[in-house]
């Protein structure tokens, strides 16, 4: 089935790379800042999962909704999260997109369709379903994407959301980014079936498992699901197989991860593979790719410098945004 998927053209593939490179370089810079003690936050690195949201987002517009989870900076950046506001938010500054009140686990940017980032496993799905309902009522062919992990497929919200989205034929794309571990728990401790996508049949919607690190497959699966949702044909479950190289929470020892699986995943790191492919296929020269990376680094430099120079929020912010009116 995956061989019948539409393939990204060269320009789209380059765009996927641009997004993925931004995610990777941004992640590396965040880690560098954290290691230097300049950023203090819980960080769930998306390193290794760059291709999934990059290949999905080239099929989305700013009007399309996404909801994501605590490991969600890659989903946000791929959809166009403004870098300056992102870094300011990570630094807890008032110039952050959420005025420093949300932090890395609650990034939000409605003008780009990034409606909710949740720190609760599984909770992106019910809300994305509601956004799908709003999208359907609007009648403007926009879609709603729910990102979540393999661990979230075992929580009740998964079942309720997929059932409701299918029942109401909502334009929702459920993207399970299966990075093999739910926090520190392997599939052996969390489910009997091999493929999470098999569960889609139980809700009467299409379900596919794809190599999320392969831009062709990921793009094709996303395009088919998004086109289907836009056409009013209802939701799809995509299980995108991937791996995260920095564990669950940055700084952990990672003893629970099988060494052979880790080594295999590292050998298949999608980023150098895509980079080399662009050059080998003549889609971009080494110099052009390097220029893309240098430009991203320059943007990160600017965002980082501005974030560090910005002010922290005033304590008066505690009274604001609890309700529409300020609390006395």
């Amino acid at each position, binding site marked *: 089935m995956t061989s019948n998927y539409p393939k990204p053209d060269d320009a789209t593939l380059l765009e996927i790379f641009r997004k993925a490179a931004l995610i990777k370089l941004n992640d590396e810079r965040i880690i560098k800042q954290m290691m230097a003690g300049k950023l203090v936050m819980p960080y769930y690195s998306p390193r290794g999962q760059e291709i999934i949201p990059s290949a999905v987002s080239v099929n989305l517009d700013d009007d399309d*909704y996404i*909801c994501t989870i605590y490991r969600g900076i890659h989903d946000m950046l791929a959809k166009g999260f403004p870098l300056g506001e992102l870094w300011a938010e990570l630094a807890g500054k008032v110039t*952050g*997109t*959420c*005025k*420093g*009140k*949300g932090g890395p686990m*609650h990034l*939000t*940017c*409605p003008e780009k369709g990034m*409606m*909710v980032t*949740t*720190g*609760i496993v599984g*909770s992106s*799905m*019910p*809300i*994305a*379903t*509601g*956004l*799908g*309902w*709003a*999208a*359907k*009522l*609007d009648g403007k062919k926009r879609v*709603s994407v729910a990102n979540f992990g393999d661990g979230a497929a075992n929580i*009740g*919200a998964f079942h*309720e*959301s997929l*059932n*409701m989205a299918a*029942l*109401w034929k909502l334009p929702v794309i459920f993207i399970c980014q299966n990075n093999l571990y739910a926090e520190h728990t392997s599939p052996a401790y969390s489910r009997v079936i091999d493929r999470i996508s098999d569960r889609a049949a139980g809700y009467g919607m299409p379900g596919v498992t794809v190599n999320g690190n392969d831009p062709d497959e990921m793009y094709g699966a996303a395009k088919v699901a998004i086109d289907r949702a836009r056409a009013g044909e209802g939701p799809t479950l995509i299980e995108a197989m991937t791996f995260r190289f920095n564990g669950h929470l940055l700084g952990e020892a990672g003893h629970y991860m099988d060494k052979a699986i880790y080594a295999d995943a590292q050998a298949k790191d999608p980023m150098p593979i895509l980079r080399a492919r662009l050059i080998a296929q003549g889609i971009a020269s080494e110099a052009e790719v390097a220029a893309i990376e240098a430009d991203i680094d320059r943007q990160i430099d600017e965002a980082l410098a501005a974030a560090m120079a910005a002010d922290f929020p005033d304590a008066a912010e505690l009274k*604001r*945004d*609890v*309700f*529409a009116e300020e*609390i006395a």
Partner: protein
Amino acid sequence: MTEATQKMTVIEAINAALHEAMEADPKVLVLGEEVGDEQDGGVMGVTKGLSTKFGKDRVKSTPISEQAIIGAAIGASVGGYKPVAEIMLMNFVTVAMDMITNHAAKLRFMSGGQTNVPIVIRTMTGAGFSTGGQHSDYLEAWFAHTAGIKVVAPSNPEDAYGLMRAAIDDPDPVLFIENLPTYWTPHPVTKQVVPIGKARVAREGGDVTVIGHSLMIVHALGVAEKLAQEGISVEVIDLRTISPWDRETVLASVRKTGRALVVHEAVKQFGIGAEIAAVINEEVWGALKAPVKRLGAAFAPVPFSKPLETAFVPQPADIEAAIRALVA
């Protein structure tokens, strides 16, 4: 009696408020278990007629999926709609607590004011029908303890109508607690919007202030009438809004009477009476002629057996005894 002041039950008043709000604003939606006319318009008929009049796109009968119901309401509201979600019985909110307290209540703050969740969560409860430990709890303190969600609880049809119109128009989530025993009492309804956060002096008096909500106000008014024959003048304050509660009205009354009794059907321990009594002590200590008294349910699950259930919740005789003790 004119159309504007016709007699209505609480059920009819809320039904009218929903009809008129849906008529006035196409963004108002209704969802919940059995809310559609094909399912009898709600377990108590509160939503009767809505699906026939406004269609099944705007009035959704849902599966028994409380997380998905509240999630769908949150998502639709973030997408620009004003959903009124029904959770059939208050005990069933437990299944949706993550959606309500982690998401509905917090998205505005966590997003730095970029998103808001203008939903109404209708629910119903109240002891007295031998429904036992999982069908009649008052759980308002849980939500009053959560920043970002408003809590209202009308005691009569006039306030039920007016608070529902206000709740639907409110830019923040509102938990709307309906009381089963008072559902069928007819009362003239003038169809005025009742502002959230404003208590009502249900009866003026000079000797003691009774503060409460829902059925306890009906009880307190009966007791006040009886004690008036003996020259004990009782002021009854119907909170109507539990959070944010109307400190001004309560404190002004207690300053005047010097005596206060807070009564609620919820368990007394850590109930809202504790907060109100504490604030009275902090703010008007010098004016108090007696320690503030509290009445609430026993520290036990709601029991089934009728005599036990009667002993569990404050009865008019308990309110009377507490008032007599205060003025003694």
